[in-house]
């Protein structure tokens, strides 16, 4: 039994215009100490997926179905009070923008100590000592003075280090990191990512990394999910997916990276843009943009237009696409041609 098991998660937003389904049939697992990447473009539902694990999606969002099992606990049906004992304690989070995450009117120390005191019966003095130790672990220069500083006195990179320190305060089982480095500069990004990776390995903490950056995912995670329009469309070992993506969308995403093309030449682009969740096409949500169906014979398959694809094993990944068999056939033919 995996440490975290999400099955058929269904999340909706009750908007004035009607219900919008932000997540459909999202299922994945996470083993103890494993690092999982969730990749997708904006609007794919990857952040919502992360927040829904701890039931932190604000109104009008609500979980309409599915289950989230964490170490034998059913998080989905838990009371808010019981869930609070998991939040920040056994599963902690790192948010995207360190400039907005820390409360501007509370000192760093206060924000760290309150977290410890919420979960442990502990003296303020002891809590401060633990906080100091964690600040040292995240390699913040002069940690003692930081405790009494306010967030606005620190740079973005420093704040994200503090947020990592808070995430580690109670030695959690899982850290959910939602685009933890997107708001930071390139050189700081690399440092923060390396730090997070080191600490996760050192303490055997599981990591769910939400990101749009395939490079980051490939460097940090062992397994990954690719999301598109609220669904998982491909999942498997990171290395396998990066090297040999099966879903046409994943292929397009990887091929669109500038480093996949010869400098100066045109990039391999995907046509069109992601549909809005309130107005999804029937069948496979990707079919209007899918190059493979059009390459086949101009007209998309009836299955692609009508039915939502089921997951099938393909190569070393699991992929939700009607065309997998054809694509593999196609590829085999090409390989034969070459050889």
């Amino acid at each position, binding site marked *: 039994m995996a440490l975290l098991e999400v099955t058929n998660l269904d999340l909706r937003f009750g908007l004035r215009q009607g219900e919008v389904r932000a997540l459909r049939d999202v299922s994945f697992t996470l083993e103890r100490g494993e690092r999982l990447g969730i990749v997708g473009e904006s609007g794919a539902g990857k952040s919502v997926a992360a927040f829904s694990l701890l039931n932190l999606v604000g109104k009008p969002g609500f979980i309409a179905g599915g289950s989230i099992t964490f170490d034998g606990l059913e998080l989905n049906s838990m009371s808010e009070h019981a869930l609070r004992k998991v939040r920040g304690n056994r599963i902690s989070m790192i948010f995207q923008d360190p400039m907005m995450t820390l409360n501007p009117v509370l000192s760093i120390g206060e924000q760290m100590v309150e977290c410890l005191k919420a979960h442990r019966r502990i003296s303020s003095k002891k809590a401060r000592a633990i906080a100091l130790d964690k600040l040292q672990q995240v390699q913040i220069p002069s940690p003692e003075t930081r405790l009494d500083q306010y967030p606005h006195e620190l740079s973005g990179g420093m704040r994200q280090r503090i947020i990592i320190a808070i995430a580690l305060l109670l030695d959690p089982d899982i850290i959910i990191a939602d685009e933890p480095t997107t708001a930071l500069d390139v050189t700081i990004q690399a440092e923060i990512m390396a730090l997070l990776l080191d600490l996760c390995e050192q303490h055997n903490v599981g990591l769910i990394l939400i990101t749009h950056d395939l490079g980051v995912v490939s460097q940090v995670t062992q397994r990954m999910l690719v999301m598109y329009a609220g669904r998982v469309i491909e999942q498997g070992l990171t290395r396998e997916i990066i090297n040999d993506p099966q879903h046409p969308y994943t292929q397009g995403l990887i091929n669109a990276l500038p480093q996949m093309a010869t400098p100066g030449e045109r990039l391999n682009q995907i046509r069109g843009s992601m*549909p809005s969740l309130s107005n999804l096409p029937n069948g496979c949500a990707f079919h209007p943009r899918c190059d493979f169906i059009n390459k086949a014979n101009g007209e998309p398959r009836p299955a692609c237009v009508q039915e939502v694809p089921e997951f099938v094993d393909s190569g070393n990944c699991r992929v939700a696409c009607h065309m997998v068999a054809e694509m593999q056939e196609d590829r085999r033919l090409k390989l034969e041609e070459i050889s």
Partner: protein
Amino acid sequence: MTTPTVTQSNSQTTRPRIPSRWERLRDSYLWYSFKRDHTAQLCLAIFIGLVIVAFASPLLAPTDPYDLRQIDIMASELPPFWIEGADERFILGTDAQGRDLLSIILYGTRVSLLIGFGAVILQALLGITFGLMAGYLGGRVDALLMRLADIQLSFSTLMVAIVVGAVVKATMGGAFYSEYAIIMLILIIGLAEWPQYARTVRASVLAEKNKEYVDAARVMGLRSKRIMFRHVLPNTLSPIFVISTVQIANAIISEAALSFLGLGMPETHPSLGSLIKSGFDYIQSGSWWITLIPGAVLVILVLSINLLGDWLRDVMNPRLYKG
């Protein structure tokens, strides 16, 4: 979050239909939310109803309260129809001078509305001009205008209006003041409340000025006057629109307050405020209707405007009075 975007696929085959202005309004969120919000509909109906009735008061009112010949002093302080001792000629009773309360309320509402609208137009003219100047020119003009506005606001607009009203009345004499009371009140309330507009306009000009479409217009080589009026001003309209509703309500209340203090409309040409004031003297003798019925009309008028303003603010969602 879910703006419908134009999909490009198949755009060659199906010619897109261009929606007309009316269709745009019909499809707009404004219209959509108005259709669903019964409070807003009711308030708009009440407001428009009151405006029409008030401005048609010479046609609708049973008597002309300004005409002294029609007033019978013997018929003073008659109660409204549902109370014993009422006279059927006067549905809502009469005031202390024997004027028909219904007629005088209709005329009074007209006066209140006239001053409210007039004052807001004046405020808007002053406030938008100064706000645009401050926001767009920046520097010393901005510092000077905004410091002035801040000082005036910290004294509260009503305080300024009372002081100015008092001083003007004292210098010009009561008779002169009464004669030109409507114009005086428009001027006083207009001058007292322009900073609200100026601050709102300045804040949204500053917000818009930093957006990239303004930079794009500058890069294009457009002159700053054109950028100001063609690009920036249209985008500051929705907050102006929203505060205008609030300001009309405020202006009507301010007028009522000034009249109540005796710095507004004279009792011969009363507004709702002066009606309440004149009735207040008789409340201890049990004639509550002279003061409370005009009061109720005032509250209904202001409340419907305020609710409309609330609804507009929710729909247009501009960040007011900030930054």
